[in-house]
């Protein structure tokens, strides 16, 4: 039985040890894992396989029973193998990096995410940061096959200019080539 488990807590030493030890004690095997710390807050998303018969309630109860995990925000959902929603391999020809920058104000990510939803463009990954006084958003996106990139860039630029957001769209291979050996 495979579960996707999310964990969020204020960062401290030993969180990963606590969580993975608890999973091990439940007989679980880690299959995939992503973890980051943002401004002192730890978050982790993992996929683990458990012995047959391990249900969600039992898993939550077992994780909650571990003393050091008692005050963690924990989410558990059964893993569905088709849940990748058409996401292709990392080197997909249609995968682009959308960089956007604007004055630090509420609603910038929402505006771009809504625009992308309307165009049927999936966001694979997103990071943001304030850089030289501007709010910078970096979206890894999966375009629809056969998208006219020139037209998309143009319409995105026009749609976002009212909000003072400057957008650039470039194929991810450029970033890989200029940063990875």
């Amino acid at each position, binding site marked *: 039985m495979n579960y996707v488990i999310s964990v969020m807590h204020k960062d401290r030493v030993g969180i990963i040890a606590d969580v993975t030890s608890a999973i091990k004690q439940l007989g679980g095997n880690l299959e995939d894992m992503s973890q980051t710390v943002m401004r002192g807050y730890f978050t982790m998303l993992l996929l683990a396989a458990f012995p047959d018969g391990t249900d969600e309630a039992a898993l939550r109860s077992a994780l909650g029973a571990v003393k050091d995990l008692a005050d963690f925000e924990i989410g558990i959902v059964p893993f569905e193998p088709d849940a990748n929603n058409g996401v292709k391999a990392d080197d997909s020809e249609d995968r682009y*990096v959308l960089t956007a920058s604007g004055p630090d104000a509420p609603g910038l990510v929402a505006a771009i995410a809504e625009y992308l939803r309307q165009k049927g463009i999936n966001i694979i990954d997103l990071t943001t940061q304030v850089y030289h006084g501007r709010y910078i958003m*970096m979206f890894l996106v999966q375009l629809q096959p056969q998208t006219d*990139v020139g037209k998309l860039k143009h319409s995105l630029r026009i749609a976002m200019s009212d909000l003072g957001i400057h957008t650039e769209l*470039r*194929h991810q291979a*450029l970033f890989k080539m200029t*940063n990875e050996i």
Partner: protein
Amino acid sequence: MMQSNQIIGTVEMIQQDNLDVRTITMGINLLDCRHQDIDVMCRRVVNKIESYAGDLVDVCDRIVEKYGVPIVNKRLAVSPAADVAAGHGPEGFVALARAMDQAARSVGVDFIGGYSAQVQKGASAADDILIDTLPEALFSTGKVCASINVGSSRAGINMTAVGKLGRTLKTLAEGSRDQDGFACAKLVIFTNQPEDNPFMAGAYHGHGEPEVVINVGVSGPGVVRRALERRIERDGAENLGLDDLAEEIKQTSCRVTRCGELIGREVASRLGIRFGIVDLSLAPTPKVGDSIGEILTILGLDAIGAPGSTACIAMLNDAVKKGGAFASQSVGGLSGAFIPVLEDSALAEAVERGELSLEKLEAMTCVCSVGLDMIAVPGDTPAETLSAMIADEMAIGMINKKTTAVRFIPVPGKVAGDRVEFGGLFGGGTVISVPNAGKSARFIRYGGHIPAPIHSLNN
């Protein structure tokens, strides 16, 4: 997902530091276009160029959309015209130049190089006709560029051709007097001319090249400059040695080259044409912030041309090659830092202030690419003096087993200190002083050949 600082770094290289692909140059073999009938030869040339390069500009434009990296120039390099038109008289050569020009316009490229001949050991009848027709060919076309290889480390220097080309430069300058002698900017005179160079005006499609090939010239002085500035801001100049700065240049050159490699290979792939080489040259533009001279200033020279300039450019040139060679599967062309005076705002200003002399430029060309390039000299410089200046630069290439080249513009009616403006990538600047003009005529009048140098006892 890549790290956000890597994404921001790449975007900054393009948006603020002037990273671009300077040229995508398609090389095309035209030797099978030869024919005794001039019209048939010209028709074959146009048809062949159109069939291979018809989609070049469109494909480049689509790749610019995909990666958001400008491709500044789309160009063609073809087989030496002296070989294609051999057997014809002057009218056949000029007709070929016009056919090249017509084809270049038809496919929408910026320039076509290959009105060329290799005469380092001696000139054939066709080579002589090509040199004789240079003025008419360049005056009657807009996109054609010419190059003559007059020397090599294996063959020596053809001084008769060098003597002739001094006079050719005068004719070209006089014939384009209303443009300050601009026709001279389309003629490069080489020693050890590369067969796969994508940069103009010296590009041609060499005999050892495949039927058709895509070569790429990267750019990047602005990126190197900003990388050095950031490193010095971050660590403090007092905490850095030149080896640290060389390493920074090397790593930046690697990133710039990777970008050129990616784009060049994709152009080749989409056109179904073999990819040739990435030329690792740092090619400046007249734009402020995209200059080799500015890099020398950041490396600690308060005046470009001051003592230390040669050492500085040697380090820069070597670091660029090391970083680029690691980044690309196949490198070639000129591969080095260019110092084309009129095309580099900081170099042009150094000449204007009297800080950078012709002699110091000549010394710097001993250790970098590619030679005395885009230099405006007084219009009354005698032809023999121009030839002697060419000979000096060719000798540097011959002895040091490197490519050297000359692009002089003797500006009609102008003297040292006067301004010239060519606009666009050709830039502008000040006419440089030529010391001892008129004192080399007896040397040049000998003509003949400087024998090939000995390849041992290297001191």
